[in-house]
């Protein structure tokens, strides 16, 4: 047997044109163009609806046209004989096996978690709830056959208004009543803070219901070989979903694989265990065939969980000079008809955020979750924190108006000064770092604040029909979900760690496996940058695998601006472990002590000599395993998890100038400046993109979007013609800059960025609209600030 000439192979690898040079400058902080783009730009995509399997069948659901009704009869027999139809089922057909969709966050002792069958069996509680399904050889035939299904409903009263729902005489959504839970958190002497307070401001704000509207509608494909099951689905959470599907369906976890292929946006809406995922899996099992379901947009508007929907009663007590004494928050949060994965947790994510960046003596947060006969709410970009930030930032403007001082001045008098960090807030969180002064100063100079104020005064003096308004939002948020210990304390059903793996391949290339599940965030690019710097390998030599539980076996997925601050750090930790192993191997091969080696530019070098081994050479040595030291395995791989001690707290100052036509109520954003502090930045291009998109969604809540139900509980905004997503023509160019105060809770000093823009921008815009109209006596405009609402607010104030 001839011996393999490993030297020659190694030589070949070294001389091949596959060798890329490590970057001379650090990758961290570099505006790398994304590795993800080429495929997406040329249509070589893997959206779930693109995928097919031999003998694939198509599923279509029949959905309830009633907001609330008893189901007295479902007859699917008419559909069964139609051309192309393979099967048709009602909820009754799944009653014994479908389980109940999970709620993983029982936030209080008194919480009521109603049974939530994926397909309704005896009662429907919102328009759009699935009541039957058809499985056919193509999607057109399946849709045709829906017409042949007969369902008899006995109408029950719709429950639509949260305050009415809590009255004694209200019809009930569930037998146990309409209260899902109630909580109260008190810190400090709230009574004392309000007693004899020179200034008390009281306001009620409405957080309208929103439809997240990821551009890719949901799709699910489930297949089985009779023993194992695979579910491809447009999800943010393949790992969490695998566990939950196993629990709900009883299919053992080890026989279940979940794949998130290309996923076209999520914004929280794909952080869910959906009825359709469960039902497609059950159908694959029942039929022994591959089945696929792809929703239409109008189906999605009805049945993808909605966001926000709170009624906020806020009371703020202050001294005469504007110093805050106390804040009372009383929330009603619309749960919709059921509690889904984190439905009740969403308002609770705002519990420690209403106090925001401000110091105060006392704080009280009370929240009641209310059932209504609407689509359940759940996480939508920011989840609880935009609502809280809106509440407090609107209140700070109201306080400034009451005192007759500049809104930034009243904030300055109350915010945590940069020298006071780390700072434990009245709500109990410890903000590790921040510099609100620096971000605000930068934003002010970019915005031309004083000049705009002068123009505003001039327009007011002239009685210009187009008034100028200036809106301020100085925000922070808690993100990077999250320390497992803190999640446990809040009774959340899972941890907040993340997992990462590094595999050095024989040719010196690097395979990264991450537990995060990107759907537009560019993790492949950013993780490549982290690994390239840490291992001293070329950026091009790194590939990142994700989103398939058969490849990435552990993970907690992507939401809550957690991917970089938790998952990116797990990858970095895995790099450290690889380097530790490589050092042992290098010392053995170089016949020196590991302590004599220094690692730089991808090579271990014996100090004071030219002797070295590159990480690629060591990967090859580990592969051949011809000369390994005692106890060293034949692999240069490592796994790591990371679980931070604290959340990450990005912050910033957003300033918005709007022109409001007082005759038509039309609002136009004239300029928008955002200075965000997201700590250290891995890729400034990606960060900027996240902030752009975040601001756009927050502006959309302020001015355009609202999910509207009529008095019978029918959703009126089922299409993109009715639910107004802003187009390019509706938005300005946002001017961005950053300040950089490193986080202390992770070794890269990074903070989350995915939600910051959305959290900051909504109050900036509404504050600007109200500021424009304040001389007319307007104190609030309910969102979205449409021309009609603005006009009515003006008319109301004139009367």
């Amino acid at each position, binding site marked *: 047997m001839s011996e393999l000439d490993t030297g020659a192979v190694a030589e070949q690898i070294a001389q091949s044109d596959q060798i890329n040079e490590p970057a001379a400058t650090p990758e961290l902080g570099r505006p790398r163009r994304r590795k993800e783009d080429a495929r997406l730009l040329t249509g070589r995509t893997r959206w779930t609806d693109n995928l097919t399997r031999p003998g694939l069948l198509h599923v279509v659901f029949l959905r309830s046209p009633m907001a609330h009704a008893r189901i007295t009869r479902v007859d699917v027999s008419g559909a069964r004989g139609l051309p192309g139809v393979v099967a048709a089922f009602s909820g009754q057909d799944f009653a014994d096996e479908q389980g109940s969709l999970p709620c993983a966050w029982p936030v209080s002792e008194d919480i009521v978690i109603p049974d939530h069958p994926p397909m309704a069996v005896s009662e429907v509680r919102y328009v759009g709830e699935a009541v039957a399904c058809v499985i056919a050889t193509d999607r*057109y035939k399946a849709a045709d056959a829906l017409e042949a299904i007969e369902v008899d409903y006995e109408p029950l009263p719709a429950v639509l208004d949260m305050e009415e729902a809590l009255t004694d005489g209200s019809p009930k959504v569930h037998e146990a009543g309409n209260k899902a839970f109630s909580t109260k958190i008190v810190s400090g002497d709230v009574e004392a803070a309000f007693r004899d307070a020179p200034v008390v401001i009281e306001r009620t704000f409405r957080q309208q219901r929103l439809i997240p509207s990821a*551009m890719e509608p949901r799709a699910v494909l489930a297949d089985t070989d009779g023993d194992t099951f695979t579910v491809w689905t447009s999800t943010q959470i393949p790992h969490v979903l695998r566990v939950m599907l196993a629990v709900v369906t009883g299919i053992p976890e080890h026989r279940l694989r979940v794949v998130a292929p290309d996923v*076209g946006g999520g914004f929280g809406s794909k952080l869910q265990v959906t009825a359709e995922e469960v039902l497609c899996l059950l159908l694959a099992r029942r039929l022994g065939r591959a089945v696929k379901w792809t929703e239409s947009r109008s189906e999605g508007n009805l049945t993808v969980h909605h966001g926000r929907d709170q009624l906020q009663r806020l009371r703020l007590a202050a001294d005469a000079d504007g110093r805050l004494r106390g804040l009372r928050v009383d929330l009603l949060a619309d749960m919709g008809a059921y509690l889904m994965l984190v439905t009740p947790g969403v308002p609770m994510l705002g519990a420690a955020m209403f106090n925001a960046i401000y110091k105060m003596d006392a704080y009280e947060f009370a929240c009641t979750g209310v059932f209504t006969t609407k689509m359940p709410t759940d996480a939508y970009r920011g989840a609880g924190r935009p609502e809280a930030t809106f509440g407090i930032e609107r209140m700070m403007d109201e306080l400034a108006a009451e005192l007759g001082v500049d809104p930034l001045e009243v904030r300055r008098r109350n915010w945590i000064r940069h020298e006071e960090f780390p700072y434990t807030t009245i709500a109990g969180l410890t903000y590790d770092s921040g510099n609100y002064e620096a971000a605000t100063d930068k934003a002010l100079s970019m915005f031309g604040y004083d000049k705009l104020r002068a123009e505003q005064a001039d327009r007011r003096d002239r009685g210009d029909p187009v008034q100028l308004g200036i809106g301020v939002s100085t925000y922070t948020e808690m993100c990077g979900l999250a320390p497992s210990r803190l999640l446990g304390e809040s009774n959340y059903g899972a941890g907040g760690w993340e997992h990462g793996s590094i595999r050095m391949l024989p040719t010196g290339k690097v395979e990264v496996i991450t537990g995060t599940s990107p759907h537009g965030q560019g993790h492949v690019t950013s993780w490549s940058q982290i690994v390239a710097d840490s291992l001293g390998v070329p950026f091009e030599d790194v590939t990142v695998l994700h989103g398939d539980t058969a490849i990435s076996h552990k993970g907690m997925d992507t939401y809550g601006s957690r991917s970089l601050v938790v998952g990116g750090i797990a990858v970095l930790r895995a790099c450290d472990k690889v380097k530790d192993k490589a050092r042992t191997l290098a010392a053995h091969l170089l016949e020196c002590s590991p302590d004599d080696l220094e690692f730089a530019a991808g090579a271990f070098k014996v100090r004071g000599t030219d002797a070295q081994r590159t990480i690629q050479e060591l990967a090859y040595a580990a592969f051949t395993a011809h000369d390994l030291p005692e106890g060293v395995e034949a692999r240069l791989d490592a796994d790591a998890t990371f679980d931070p001690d604290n959340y990450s707290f990005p912050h910033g100052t957003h300033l918005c100038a709007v022109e409001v036509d007082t005759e038509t109520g039309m609002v136009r954003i004239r300029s928008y400046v955002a200075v965000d502090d997201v700590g250290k930045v891995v890729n400034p*291009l990606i960060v900027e993109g996240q902030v752009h998109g975040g601001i*756009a969604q927050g502006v959309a809540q302020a001015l355009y979007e609202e999910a509207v139900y009529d008095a019978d509980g029918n959703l009126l905004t089922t*299409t993109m013609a009715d639910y107004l997503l802003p187009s390019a023509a509706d938005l300005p160019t946002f001017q961005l800059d950053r300040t950089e105060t490193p986080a202390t809770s992770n070794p890269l000093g990074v903070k989350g960025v995915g939600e910051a823009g959305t959290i900051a921008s909504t109050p900036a815009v509404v504050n600007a609209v109200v500021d424009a109209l304040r001389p007319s006596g307007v104190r609030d405009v309910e969102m979205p600030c449409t021309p009609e609402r603005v006009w009515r607010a003006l008319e109301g104030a004139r009367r």
Partner: protein
Amino acid sequence: MPRISVTVDGITYEEDVEPRLLLVHLLRDRLGRTGTPIGCDTSNCGACTVMLDGKSAKSCSVLAVQADGCEVVTIEGLGTAGSMHPMQRAFHEEHALQCGYCTPGMVMAAIDLLRDDPDPSEDAIRQGLEGNLCRCTGYCNIVRAVRRGAQEMGQAVSTQ
């Protein structure tokens, strides 16, 4: 069933189609051209935009039979990873895509916009792309990319 002949990205297909079959479903389900995605059912989002005889069309709003005898260019026929169209390159350079779902339609609409206005202002780009929705980017970088694409395409023409 009507028989149609349609050329997609340079390949001519003869297909028997139901009269109600949408062009986008012909492309995706029958011809396997899945590069063109579907984002809505009311022709608001523009994700499914293709070139139909050289003009942009939302392929969810065209019946396959209407495309009989026509030439369709999808994002897959525009360029490849190794040799992208200048507009595709511009989207890459300006980070004008995140999840990428709206991107095929956005790129097609942008190219069509330049047919009428080869050197559009920011405002003209914003108005011109009104029929294409993006949920990720806030449009800032898309506008930049279209400016850049216009410049590069203009240069490409002038140096010919």
